[in-house]
């Protein structure tokens, strides 16, 4: 009995004083091997009187188990190079420094992803563009209110005899005729995302914002296709329970024109303080006006199309319930690092 105790203490001391893995590995054979003192004790069990055999066997096994445990703990401590063999799973891990993407970028990525699946390619057009692309070609003739100095920013530059003044695009629709010119022969499936500018600043407007625009032109395009495209987008972007509806509206560059609504996420369409009778306005859309197709040198007798566009900031506000759109451009690091 004393033998076991002594053996055990010796082995413990050896294990605890091992300086490195190599030493510890050597000890394993010495302590637990076939010819170890412990193994010999087991072999000699038969020489003990039958009445004490059982107890001695149990003691040897206990010692073996305890030593095995101690050995493993020591091993972990040598491997991890840590004094304490206790880990605290709630303590902070050692992280790599990660940055953050702006909410607007995250929304853009999601939107592009969704429309990519429908075959839309992502294009980019000038943010400072000619009057022609921003207005004239979009069936917004001279004298149209959007062309006023107090709604749209103009650049201090000489006018072009053909294309007119230089404007900061107040919408992404300047990409429509540019895309028609680039592609020449439909089909066209284009997404255009860009910074836009309007001469307004108040609680819910910033003079710069992001808009995205979709354009599809082909031989057999109808309002039902526009509906299907929006349904696909809404369910993917906002969630499977949200539904869309089209309401009559008016834009110069589409006919018919629609406002697209999505059921309010807060009240699930029942109507609440944040929405209009259960609906939130997502953006504008419509069937491309024949005059716009003509401006893009596409025959409106053969081709029809639809276009849509809306502010990215608005969709973010709708999705995240962001109370104030201006937060997006204040660049407070505490805000940026939230996302």
């Amino acid at each position, binding site marked *: 009995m004393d033998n076991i105790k002594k053996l055990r203490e010796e082995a413990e001391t050896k294990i605890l004083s091992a300086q490195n893995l190599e030493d510890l590995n050597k000890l394993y054979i010495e302590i637990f091997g076939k010819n170890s003192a412990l193994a010999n004790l087991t072999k000699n069990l038969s020489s003990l009187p039958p009445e004490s055999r059982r107890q001695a066997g149990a003691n040897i096994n206990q010692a073996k188990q305890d030593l095995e445990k101690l050995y493993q703990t020591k091993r972990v401590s040598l491997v991890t190079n840590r004094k304490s063999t206790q880990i605290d799973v709630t303590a902070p891990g050692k992280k790599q420094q990660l940055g953050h*993407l702006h909410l607007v*970028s995250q929304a853009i990525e999601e939107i592009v992803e969704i429309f990519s699946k429908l075959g839309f390619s*992502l294009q980019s057009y000038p943010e400072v563009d000619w009057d022609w692309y921003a207005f004239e070609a979009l069936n917004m003739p001279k004298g149209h209110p959007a062309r006023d100095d107090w709604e749209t920013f103009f650049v201090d*530059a000489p006018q072009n005899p053909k294309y007119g003044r230089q404007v900061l695009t107040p919408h992404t629709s300047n990409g429509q005729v540019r895309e028609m010119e680039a592609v020449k022969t439909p089909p066209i499936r284009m997404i255009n995302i860009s910074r836009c500018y309007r001469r307004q600043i108040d609680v819910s407007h910033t003079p710069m914002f992001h808009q995205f625009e979709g354009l599809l032109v082909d031989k057999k395009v109808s309002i039902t296709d526009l509906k299907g495209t929006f349904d696909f987008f809404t369910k993917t972007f906002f969630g499977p329970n949200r539904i869309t509806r089209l309401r009559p509206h008016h834009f110069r560059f589409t006919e018919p024109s629609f406002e697209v609504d999505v059921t309010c996420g807060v009240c699930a369409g029942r109507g609440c303080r944040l929405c209009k*009778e259960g609906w939130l306005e997502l953006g504008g859309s419509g069937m491309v006006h024949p005059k716009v197709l003509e401006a893009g040198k596409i025959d409106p007798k053969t081709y029809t199309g639809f276009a849509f566009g809306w502010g990215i900031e608005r969709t973010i506000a709708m999705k995240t319930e962001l109370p104030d759109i201006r937060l997006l451009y204040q660049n407070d690091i505490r805000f940026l690092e939230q996302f």
Partner: protein
Amino acid sequence: MNIKIPVSWLREYLKTDAAAKTIARELSLAGPSVERTEKRGEDYIFDIEVTTNRPDAFSVFGIAREANAILNFVGNKSKLQPPVGMDLNLEPDTKEKLALDVKVANPILCPRFTAIILSNIKIGPSPAYIKNRLEAVGIRAINNIVDITNYIMMETGNPMHAFDYDKILGAKMVLRASKTGEKLTTLDGKNYNLPEGSIVIEDQKRLIDLCGIMGGENSQITRRTKRAIFFVQAYDPKTIRRTTQTLAVRTEAAARFEKGIDLENILPVLSRAVYLAKKNAGAQIASELVDIYPKKQVSKTVTLNSVKLDKYLGIKIEPSKAAQILRLLGFKVETDIARLTAVAPAWRAQDIKEDVDLIEEIARIYGYHNLPSTLPEGQIPQRPDGILKDVIALKNSLKVLGLTEAMSYSIISKAMLNGSQVDPKDAVELQNPLTEEWQFMRPSLIPSLVDVVAKNQNLKQDIAIFEIAKTYIKRKDALPQQDLWLTIVKTGNDFYEIKGLTENILQILKRNVTFQKETRENRIFQKDESAIVNVEGQEVGTLGLLSHTLTDSFGINIQLLSLELNLTKVFGLKTTQKGFKPLSKYPPQIEDISAIFATQTPVTMITEEIKKASHLVKNVEVTDIFESEKIGKGKKSITLRITYQKSTGTPETEEVREARDKIIKMLQKEFLAQVRV
């Protein structure tokens, strides 16, 4: 434009059992949207958005007309009851007829001019229902005559005006364009210097009306008025709009005139006003009707092909159904097998021009919600994505590299512009900026990002931000240069840190990058601590330590590192094609050589020479560079890790020694290096 309408008022013209809620829903789905319904006592107030192409619906009766068509189509019983008194015979009631001498100088400014004189007026309060209704839509009741003008405008959408006849000098009215320097005090007591070309009315001596916007104070109805001129017109929308903008006045009347007025409805409106004046103020007609209407308004006849209609709607619509819808909306329609021909009602004459306009009418009343939802058929275009797709991927990489994305305004102030390297003459300036804060399109993102750091410097110690956006540089006779730039600004003072980051980024972008010392004067970067970034021999950006002048001007007293990279250029340059190289079967020998060089010796020159020194050298890496007093001034110690490898076997010790000796000799000879073995 939004209009508030009490449902009780609406029901005066819209005879239906449909509940307010039903009316609101059906209107929103197929016509003007009821954005909110507010319960007020027993009544409901609709807040309705009317689009700018539908001035005909910008009134209580106009909404009733829309609702009536829609309700009938969806199967709700409904009947339209026009206001009473719209077809009076406007003959004088008095024996003695008062004179009014009217001249319209230019019919383009005023396509229809009607007026009539009323006498025997007893000024007093309006009946309660008129006062209540005006109040419900936000108009203050004044007296029975003035209230009629406002009531008529809200009811029919046609603004009108009443003058005190006895204040019109010489009973004369000349409608003309204003001349430079003319002044008028309007009935709200404000004085205006009129812009040239506004529409005005002059009596014998003075201006009495700023037409379409507000009447003059000198001719207004007062408690003492006995005789009045009722006055209903239409004006040139563009001219009205220009005047309201120049003078920055908004009135309910102007909002309607600048959208266009149904010329055919002008006389009925005048008749209705006279009817109310007789009823509410005991008025009598005291003159002949003046009606100057040189060019009659005509609705266009539009033909719609049924194949086109079906193509737009995506379903088959029976021509009889389409015709039914148009008739409900007041169109005159004829159909045959392949097409329908429609003439718009007078109130839509200015809005309905071509077949797609008819398609819209048919589709909306049919109900967009009744159309199925399908995904577009047809081929997917073979069109590659533009660089924005690559930018999305790049942003994700930058995030993983520990950078946080900022987004700042592209329009900047003059002060911010001075924080860029670009000559202000080359900057794109706005012609009509909102404020001085937003005056120029930025030619560089650096000042904006430094500004972001300045705003956050008390919130966080280590800041590492980036932004990807266009910059703008003026070009002669062309749109501005609008390249997309990546700009990084981070706290720190180690040139090699921002250089390493740049190397990481260009590796992610799969481009070969080289760096070159900046030799030009630069206000933004510290000349001695910055470099030019080259890809394929083209300059694509700058990196390094930002200058103190710049950081100081933003009140920052820590060091900032920055990279600006022209992504438009970089994405246009070829990517590195990495082909497969066979893996050597034999392990290499790797050794370090440390040596002391003159500080100005470029490291790449050393590594290039080592590679040339022996064919056994497969790779040279710089593992350490340091300067210290121990080594001496103007000197640096470099540790070079050299990989010796052969394709036929592991290099022998003897071979490696030979190669090493060659290298050491070369270093001593070419670079005067002291090799420390």
